[in-house]
């Protein structure tokens, strides 16, 4: 099997309060079939064998759906492949001898926990402010009692596909969370079930988003470009309509 040599520059930071720095490593036994995270596993095995502390990075399902993996790879969240989360990025997209810089997602509301691990609980707090439909278990009417046009259901699904990874924030030159927040507001605004709480939801979620300290959206659309689920900035436009309607009407 073909082996590649890679030069890695990885952000190392002991904990939230200790300053970090980029540290260089060289790996000689990378194969093109490996996933990016498996490449880091290999690095960690070498580090552990040498008695050094491994690089911490968040990951879980490794099939692109849990949203736990992050990493900014050569300046792009989730790396160079379009519509692909870091865990599904494979080393065949890199060349022998490449230098790869790996940094954590950067935003004030995403403080670094250790090395490449960041705390994204700000997203939970935004959703808790209104990213739901208030329905207690047991009180729902029959599922087919509300017909929803297929096109509407499909568009709601496009927004609902968000995996909450935070790449949109990491990629945004302003560190705005608009794409994430808009995906939920848009999904629930499209569906008839979401109507009763529509205004309250938009107002409260945006208020919480601002309170968390995310930046403002300047419409760079870099978020859409890095989104593993290709969520469109059309949802940001809808979020803005929802907010202004809630304010003005």
């Amino acid at each position, binding site marked *: *099997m073909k082996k590649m040599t890679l030069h890695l520059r990885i952000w190392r930071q002991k*904990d939230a309060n200790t300053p970090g720095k980029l540290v260089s490593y060289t790996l000689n036994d990378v*194969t*093109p*079939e*490996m*996933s990016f995270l*498996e490449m880091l596993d290999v690095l960690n095995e070498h580090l*552990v*064998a040498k*008695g050094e*502390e*491994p690089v*911490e990075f*968040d*990951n*879980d*399902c*490794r*099939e*692109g*759906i*849990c*949203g*736990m993996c992050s990493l900014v790879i050569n300046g792009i969240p989730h790396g160079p*492949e379009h519509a692909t989360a870091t865990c*599904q990025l*494979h080393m065949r997209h890199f060349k022998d001898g490449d230098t790869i810089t790996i940094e954590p997602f950067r935003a004030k509301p995403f403080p670094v926990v*250790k090395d490449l691990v960041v705390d*994204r*609980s700000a997203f*939970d707090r935004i*959703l*808790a402010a209104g990213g*739901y*439909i208030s*329905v207690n*278990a*047991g009180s*729902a*009417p*029959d*599922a*087919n009692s509300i*017909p*929803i*046009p*297929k096109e509407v*259901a499909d568009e*709601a*699904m496009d927004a*609902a*596909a968000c*995996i*909450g990874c935070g790449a949109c924030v990491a990629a945004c030159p302003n560190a705005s969370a608009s794409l994430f927040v808009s995906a939920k507001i848009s*999904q*629930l605004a499209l*569906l008839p*079930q*979401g109507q009763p709480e529509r205004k309250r939801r938009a107002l409260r979620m945006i208020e919480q988003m601002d309170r968390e300290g995310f930046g403002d959206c300047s419409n760079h659309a870099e978020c859409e470009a890095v989104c593993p689920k290709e969520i469109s900035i059309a949802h940001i436009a809808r979020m803005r309509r929802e907010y202004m309607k809630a304010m003005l009407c």
Partner: protein
Amino acid sequence: MKLDSKLPSGPLHEKWDRHKADLKLVNPANKRKHTIIVVGTGLAGASAGATLAELGYNVKSFCIQDSPRRAHSIAAQGGINAAKNYQNDGDSIWRLFYDTIKGGDYRSREANVYRLAQLSVQIIDQAVAQGVPFAREYGGLLANRSFGGAQVSRTFYARGQTGQQLLLGAYSSLLRQVDLGRVTLFSRREMLDLVVINGKARGIIVRNLVTGEIERHVADAVVLATGGYGNVYFLSTNAKNSNATAAWRCYKRGAAFANPCFTQIHPTCIPRAGHYQSKLTLMSESLRNDGRVWVPKKKGDKRHPNEIPEDERDYYLERRYPAFGNLVPRDVASRAAKAVCDEGRGVGEFGQAVYLDFADAIRRLGIDVIRDRYGNLFDMYERITGENPYEVPMRIYPAVHYTMGGLWVDYNLMSTIPGLFVLGEANFSDHGANRLGASALMQGLADGYFVIPYTIGDYIAGTELEVVSTDADAFKEAEDGVKQQIDKLLSIKGKKSVLEFHRQLGEIMWDYVGMSRNAEGLKHAIKEIRKLREEFWQNVYIPGDSRNLNKDLEFAGRVADFLELGELMAIDALHRNESCGGHFREEYQTPDGEALRDDKNFAYVAAWEYKGDGKEPELHKEPLEFEYVKPTTRSYK
């Protein structure tokens, strides 16, 4: 230990309603005086946490990830079954019940499964009301697809992301309760012990994975929804953090572990590509609707698949099972793939794969139809393997996917420790020896939304719960135990990484306690696991310390538990002298290689009781009685 399943009396279809009528209630004003701990935030944990808070209880919700939304339920692709009969194709609660009992190879309780089928209907209503964007027809009504093991179309789905959408629905309900102040979230916390006081589960010990602090949490009841133990095999379709530690520590505190050997191996996964492989990725079972499975007739044929002529290919599923062909159930398809690979006819670099070929389907239906049906799966395959499945046959191989076994629970989902309830994949209850596709989501949500809210109230109302604080001796003893184990792990400073131990355990499990098992292999496995466990405690190396985020330390604790659980799985597999569902014993098969069940001697749930380190666990049997469905042999010929 006595197993009392508390099955209600009366006719099957009235059991749950009668039981509900008999359950004691907690006054609304009193509910807020009670705290319930829910560990895990997957479908079962999130739905339970949300629903208990809706009722008025104080809920403390724990998860190991950075957010409750990451739980591995999120990765379920295909769909969720419900006996809605929206398609008018003859579905009913009875039929869903029957399919599930039969699919489980007659190793589950009739009453539980019937209740599951009844509740399936309400789950869909609840999910739709939460805004789950299920697939719809142009008329605006819900769409269904068909799935393995059923002759009706009863599976509801949201593209290939049904688990994600259902989990986000439950998670949003949970967050609503966080906003209302009834749920407190504790993320990045790992449960390391259960605290039992006066014979009742009264709290847990968790480690804060960021700061390393050990915390004590007290409650009136503990709900465990921590998923399955497929990662005992190292390579599985489970998430990397999925583990059995919480369940295993409850087992060591006195909760019986039922049917540990029942594991499901899914036939259509992307095969492993190298030693460094960290996990396996599932490809939806629906691919077998149009793909044809084959291997070369010749051993060690290294030609490119497209250069192997038609008459030198063995379409072995179509050959062995002419009636069902490529659509045989999961366990049958998996074993058949293993058989041809064992003969040396496997393909791919390691000879551990078979072809799933769409060339015929593309010729018959056109590439556009295939793209429309499976486009996203083909893209995923290409992303991972770098091969284009429109031109080259896919390579697939079975992988561990789900564990039917789990902590033993009664009809109320309570374990053998009073006050400890176990939901979802973590319990053993509804799937018998084999789970049907699209049924895991159904069970997790039924347990969380519609069973536990009733049964936990009965427990709280009917139990004298002493005032307990975290200063109690039992908390101290549990915390000390946890700390000692962590210190011990860190002090070994051996030569081998946690990952390497896990990999080795996985190999033993896969080779001897995997798709097909035999007494000799199982005995060998038990010996090997014991040896490995001993080596682990002498030679494991964990870098760093415990006062910080340290994944190697987290994994060390989990692998230590897997090293014990693996042995129990082998012991259970060795004692079950029959083949049923996911458990195939080579000694018990028909002359043409089909599973041979032994209803006379093994129609029971095997519940194992922990008797102390180094001691043999004790087997307790809960007989299974079939009043409504008479066990028959599954045949797919």
